[in-house]
């Protein structure tokens, strides 16, 4: 048992335990040296077909897996201990309580944040603002997918399809009919929502994991159609020269456009947060959460399963459509290569890592996952590797994400008994 945990009784001496722990780590280390040997050590150069031996990698793997296996076992042990004791008072709850009990701190924090957000494009360069805009786009995408995955518990792996629908509807409407950004924005969102309903209607009867694969298939179909239907979507070469958003007909420089788009994004993100947080506590939002927890019980309580799921799907798609329009307006050029499965995976990992169902979690997740690789350029090629690994690790050790959504307690306050009759 390589990954087994030391289950010996406490009577064994400390030295004996250290030896056995080290022996286990050594085994893991040897196993990974064997496992990664062909891929990590030997490399075939594609051009001249010579073989390159990289023995130093083997050394790094050995050291790395030796120490990581200690951490792995420690975390596993901690997870098991936590499971037995019902101790849920963690740092997050304490901060939440503190914020509620001291509204002064909360309000001051909000004001400082508001000023920082407003001044951001004036303090930093246009390049920084561009990065911030794309981070905010992912915040919106994450919050949109959060409705579908986090609240309703429907794993949608083809979310990028709705994003593509939004982007292409603005690009095509602008290209053929010269429609402005502000006209196309609601249209793009509506079209995406329509697509959500049309795609969702047949597949929402399926169970969770089937749904994941079918949505993945739909996402790929839409991308392939965009790539191959040259007459409609101009194929792989894409659509160029899409207009930027206008401001009452005032001529703006490129820099001013960026700042303008930044403020549009801030407003839309605020709108998203407002809508999502209101939705969550509404009747339909509670129905989503209930449906996520138990479908059968939900149906027996009289919740229309199909309609509830469909609303989640359509509302999630709406946000993707909105962001799609903004994406087209921001880059002024789109092609199908921007809408691959990897994009869906990034958005999903934002939701998963941030904390499924939690609004603040998703915002933090998006900012961390999008801004960090931008500023750590040297590591940007490892970005997807880290995404993948952290999705696994988060699921294993902290399935609720960085910030877990707090369970809401609802209380009934009848007015002096008259509601109760």
């Amino acid at each position, binding site marked *: 048992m390589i990954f087994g945990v030391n289950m010996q009784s406490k009577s064994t001496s400390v030295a004996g335990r250290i030896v056995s722990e080290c022996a286990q780590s050594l085994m893991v280390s040897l196993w990974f040296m064997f496992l990664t040997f062909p891929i990590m050590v030997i*490399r075939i150069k594609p051009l001249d077909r010579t073989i390159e031996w990289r023995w130093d990698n083997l050394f790094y793997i050995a050291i790395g897996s030796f120490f990581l296996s200690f951490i792995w076992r420690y975390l596993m042990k901690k997870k098991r201990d936590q499971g037995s004791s019902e101790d849920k008072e963690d740092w997050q709850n304490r901060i939440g309580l503190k914020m509620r009990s001291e509204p002064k701190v909360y309000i001051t924090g909000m004001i400082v944040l508001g000023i920082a957000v407003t001044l951001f494009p004036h303090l930093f360069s246009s390049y920084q603002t561009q990065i911030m805009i794309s981070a905010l786009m992912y915040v919106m995408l994450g919050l949109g997918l959060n409705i579908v995955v986090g609240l309703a518990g429907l794993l949608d*792996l083809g979310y990028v399809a709705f994003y593509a629908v939004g982007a292409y509807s603005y690009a095509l409407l602008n290209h053929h009919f010269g429609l402005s950004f502000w006209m196309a924005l609601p249209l793009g969102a509506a079209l995406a929502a329509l697509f959500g309903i049309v795609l969702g209607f047949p*597949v929402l009867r399926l169970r969770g994991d089937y749904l994941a694969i079918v949505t993945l298939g739909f996402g790929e*179909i839409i991308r392939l159609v965009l790539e*191959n239907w040259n007459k409609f979507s101009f194929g792989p070469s894409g659509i160029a020269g899409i207009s930027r958003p206008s401001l009452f007909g005032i001529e703006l420089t490129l820099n001013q456009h960026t700042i303008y788009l930044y403020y549009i994004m801030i407003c839309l993100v605020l709108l998203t947060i407002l809508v999502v947080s209101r939705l969550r506590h509404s009747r339909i939002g509670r129905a989503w959460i209930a449906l996520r927890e138990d479908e059968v019980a939900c149906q027996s309580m009289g919740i229309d399963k199909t309609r509830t799921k469909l609303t989640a799907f359509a509302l999630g798609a709406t946000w993707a459509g909105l962001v799609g329009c903004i994406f087209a307006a921001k880059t002024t050029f789109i092609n199908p290569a921007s809408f691959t499965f990897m994009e869906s995976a990034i958005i999903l*990992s934002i939701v998963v890592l941030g904390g499924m169902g939690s609004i603040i979690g998703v915002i933090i997740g998006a900012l961390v996952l999008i801004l960090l690789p931008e500023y750590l350029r040297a590591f940007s090629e490892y970005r997807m590797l880290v995404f993948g690994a952290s999705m696994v690790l988060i699921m294993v050790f902290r*399935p609720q994400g960085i910030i877990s959504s707090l369970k809401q307690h609802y209380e009934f306050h009848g007015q002096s008994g008259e509601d109760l009759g």
Partner: protein
Amino acid sequence: MEYFLELFLGGLTRGSIYALIALGYTMVYGIIELINFAHGEIYMIGAFTALIAASVLSLLGLSGPSLLILAGVIAVIYSSAYGYTIEKIAYKPLRQAQRLSPLISAIGMSIFLQNYVLLAQTSDFLSFPALIPEFGFMEPISHIMQSSELVIIVTTALCTILLTLFIKFTRIGKAMRATAQDKTMAMLLGVNVNRVVSMTFIIGSALAAVGGVLISSHIGQINFYIGFIAGIKAFTAAVLGGIGSIPGAVLGGLILGWTESFATGYVSSDYEDVFAFGLLVFILIFRPSGILGKASSEKV
């Protein structure tokens, strides 16, 4: 007629590979009800290991069938080891977790493995040597069917028969069937469920590696991304035939192979993948339990 026969055999070859990969999906799903999203990546790693092993071995002077067999065996061993390790890291700690957790973990694993190979090797297409030899007796019909196609079809048939016998008659095979039917009951009767699950991953990965080596040698090039599309299509095949059923996986693979082959031959080659995904969506809507699958209702 000849064109039809060519498409038919092309579809059979393609379908055989899908079937080999689909067997791994179907076995894992049958036992722990998990879509092993990283299964396609195992197939890709199998192909890469075979390429690396073949390159090193041919430097040592090996060639011909012995090279194919040795490279194939190394690929099978490594893929099985990867399958075993992935299960231990990404799925076993999540046995008791919510339904979506292992699936998300599997997607993470798949992304991780793709980028691991991308970073450790290359993002370019690598040419894969034609390891399968040209047979003399295939000369007269070589314009319809290549030797490598024959090898692929025969190997798939052999693997399927061996797997069926293994599951039917060996002790561990019986334990597998018992676990698939009722995990708790099997545990009570003394079946080591963890070992059964590990074994399932090892066998499924080995079959995927066989598929990876054969199709790479047939097509002649590989890159880190081949596992993704192949994995999705093999999953389609498994669902098509009825997930959890071994004959179903083979049947589904063949149907998918033929659909793609005839669609690209007679309709349009641009939409090859669209037909595959379209078929998946169609099947799931009208017969979610698949062709040979049994419809099950949820117990409360």
